């Protein structure tokens, strides 16, 4: 695809619908972000797929032209941040409508959001806020996941969040909470290894045991990202900033998860201090190498 074709006149947007997506053959993808729009379209990359936040493409506009061009070349995962599935309130109809329009046009292979909340009353706080892990939260989350799946006519994935705060009233651990939501609604689990790592530090639990507890057959996608260590008077808190390369410990956790769960589409997320495309694709190459190694181990075992 030449760069020229991107610069079509923006008169009529007559892209799509694209043919339905199969699960990508190449398992590793990257987030498509504004600074890389043109380069991703003009470079031949060894990538299985691209991920975007649907919220950035609601209602049309210039962004959508780039997404349409990208979708011609790559499989797509729509990873939402705005459904606020964990809110006490029902999911906003307007949000469901905007999201469904994109699903119909772009035919993503996966659709997802988080086990967290953002909206309360008249405010939508722009962050993934923590839920108490109680039966009440589970029921409310399940209701919103079900509404969403019914509206979309398809299964969604729900991601384990990064949290910095836990609750006295927790009735179960997050790993069990994630399994339960999948059992109750038929949704899949989007397993974010960096989020597990960050929380294991922030709340003092064992990240490996979390992965062992997750029911492997629910996992439909994995995410990897970088975090920062934030110094406070009373210790270090890890913050999931998506602003750095994936840490070595998180790669180890990823290896463990791939061995346990098998190969699923895996995303490298990088959302602030966005590096050059080469660096980002380099992270994807690392994930691919890990998958190749583990697959080779499996073959060696089978041959024994």
């Amino acid at each position: 695809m030449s760069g020229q074709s991107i610069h079509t006149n923006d008169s009529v947007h007559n892209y799509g619908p694209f043919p339905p997506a199969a699960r990508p053959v190449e398992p590793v993808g990257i987030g498509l972000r504004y600074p890389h729009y043109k380069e991703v379209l003009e470079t031949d990359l060894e990538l299985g797929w691209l991920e975007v936040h649907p919220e950035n493409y609601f209602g049309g506009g210039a962004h959508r032209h780039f997404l349409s061009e990208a979708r011609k070349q790559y499989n797509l995962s729509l990873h939402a941040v705005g459904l606020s599935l964990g809110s006490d309130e029902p999911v906003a109809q307007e949000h469901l409508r905007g999201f469904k329009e994109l699903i119909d046009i772009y035919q993503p292979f996966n659709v997802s959001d988080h086990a967290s909340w953002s909206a309360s009353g008249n405010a939508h706080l722009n962050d993934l806020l923590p839920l108490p892990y109680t039966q009440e939260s589970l029921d409310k989350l399940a209701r919103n996941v079900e509404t969403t799946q019914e509206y979309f006519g398809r299964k969604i994935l729900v991601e384990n969040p990064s949290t910095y705060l836990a609750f006295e009233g927790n009735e179960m651990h997050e790993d069990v909470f994630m399994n339960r939501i999948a059992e109750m609604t038929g949704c899949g689990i989007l397993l974010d290894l960096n989020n597990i790592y960050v929380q294991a530090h922030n709340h003092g639990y064992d990240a490996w045991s979390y992965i062992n507890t997750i029911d492997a057959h629910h996992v439909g996608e994995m995410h990897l990202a970088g975090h920062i260590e934030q110094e406070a008077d009373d210790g270090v808190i890890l913050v999931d900033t998506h602003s750095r390369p994936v840490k070595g410990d998180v790669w180890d956790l990823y290896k463990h998860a791939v061995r346990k769960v098998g190969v699923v589409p895996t995303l490298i997320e990088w959302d602030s201090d966005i590096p050059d495309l080469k660096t980002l694709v380099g992270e994807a190459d690392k994930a691919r190498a890990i998958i190749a190694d583990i697959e080779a181990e499996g073959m060696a075992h089978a041959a024994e």
Partner: protein
Amino acid sequence: MQLSEYQNRFKDLMLDHPDVLDAPPEDLAAFCKSGDIALPTRLKVYRNNIVGSLTDMLKATFPITQALVGEKFFETMARSFILQNPPAKGVLSHYGEGMDEFIASYTPAKPLPYLTDIAAYEISKNHSYHAADDAPLTAAQLAVIPPEELQDMQITLRAHVFLIHSKYPLTSIEEFCMENDADKALDLDQGGEHLMVFRRNLDVEVAVIGQGEFEFLQQISNGASLGEAMEQVLSEFADFNIQDVLQKHLVLETFRAL
């Protein structure tokens, strides 16, 4: 504590004065767990995520406003805006709408009377970028309209076209800010501007347009027929040439397809 109460209280806390995070309400504190790392440290991560990400978004939407007041001033102003006007929904492409009115009532910005118009100009640019796609009216479509029907025709502007009038020279201010050349002086009294903000080839552009032309586009975007708009403009601007203006805007693809 029920989920609804927790979410409501937590939201209020996030939008409250920053000092409150150091001593959160007792019942909310009892509901949360702290451990080695104390509750205020944990709450501040969320507060920083919320205010920080929205501030970054506002910086991206209002680069000229920020250049005029400086980063520190802008960040303080942005925080006040955010706490008073948190997003109302999960789509943030238009977040920052209302910044112009906010600035108009923001006392520290009073010495810069043009700031409100600059913010409105930047809001238009953002809206133009995100505006829905629609097809343009072409000369060929117009050519088949019988001449006697042209008078009564209503045509409208495309979704990405915005008209801005200011008594300040907005594009000169913009140029001055973006060049950042200390040796250059800006004459704020050089007169105002009539602007059309629009999207071409996926980029937002701005054109300085004539006063009659501005008036004409304004009239038709308010629903006047071509004949009414022309009559109105001619009464004020005797030298207004409808042929030239139509021709120009057919080329710029300003009008929406019939």
